[in-house]
């Protein structure tokens, strides 16, 4: 900045602000305008793999990480529950019925399930295992799948309510 004119500095600031705006717009499109089909497929695959690993022979719940989950249900029950959830999720994707009431209720259940899985693992051991980072991402994704339609509904209601006409 030393030796540059005020105009050059201002231009540079405007340029940085424009690039920042572009980044924000890009992120906004990724959050709001993308479809969530890939997210649902990832959740379905994750639930399927969780289910398979819990049903796998051996006592997975012996590990301290699953202490809280073990108090709620036995390992095999969790396994079947997760497999059922995976099957339901992939069925919703295949039928493309994302907006029916059942799919919305299932999204709420799915968000609750993943949030519980993450919170239970964090509460069971300290410090939390590094791998739980992936589960946290899936929990956030499941919450977004449930929450986004409500937020968009609110946005559209406000936008059409405040749009002026001649």
């Amino acid at each position, binding site marked *: 900045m030393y030796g540059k004119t005020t105009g050059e500095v201002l231009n540079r600031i405007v340029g940085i602000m424009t690039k920042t705006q572009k980044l*924000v717009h890009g992120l906004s499109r990724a*959050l*709001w305008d993308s479809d969530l089909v890939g997210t649902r497929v990832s959740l379905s695959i994750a639930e399927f793999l969780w289910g398979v690993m819990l049903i796998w022979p051996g006592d997975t719940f012996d590990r301290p990480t699953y202490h809280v989950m073990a108090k709620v249900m036995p390992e095999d029950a969790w396994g079947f529950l997760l497999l059922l959830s995976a099957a339901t999720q992939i069925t919703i994707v295949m039928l493309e019925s994302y907006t029916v009431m059942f799919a919305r209720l299932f999204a709420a259940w799915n968000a609750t399930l993943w949030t519980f899985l993450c919170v239970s693992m964090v509460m069971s051991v300290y410090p939390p295992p590094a791998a739980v980072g992936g589960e946290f991402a899936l929990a956030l994704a499941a919450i977004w799948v449930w929450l986004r339609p409500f937020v968009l509904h609110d946005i*559209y209601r406000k936008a*059409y309510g405040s*749009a002026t*006409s*001649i």
Partner: protein
Amino acid sequence: MDQQHQSEFQSSQFNRRAEDQYQRRAADGGPPHGPSNSDLMEAIKELQGMMKVVHTAFPRNDLGEPDFAGHRADHVARIAAARNVEGYKVKMTERALVGIVAVLFTLFATGAGEHVKRVVFGG
């Protein structure tokens, strides 16, 4: 009529037919002045028919007429609403980003920075 509208009128089907009739009459040795009254009446009837079809594309207003002004107003309102929607989405994204940056800043300010320094520099 300005040049753009004149060229559009000239390229219309109606005018091409009138032009064909004029050329045929001129070739037959007929009057070179343009279409006859009956040709004009036929053309007007055809235009009226087309206008009726166009009118069916618009809803009726409280006077029972095609609501041309309402159609335009509806488009203006929808464009404004779509712009509002984009604005809300970008605003919420910005707020989310600011929130995340604020949380990270708070974490560093409350000692996470010290922890990182200890880990990285062993001090």
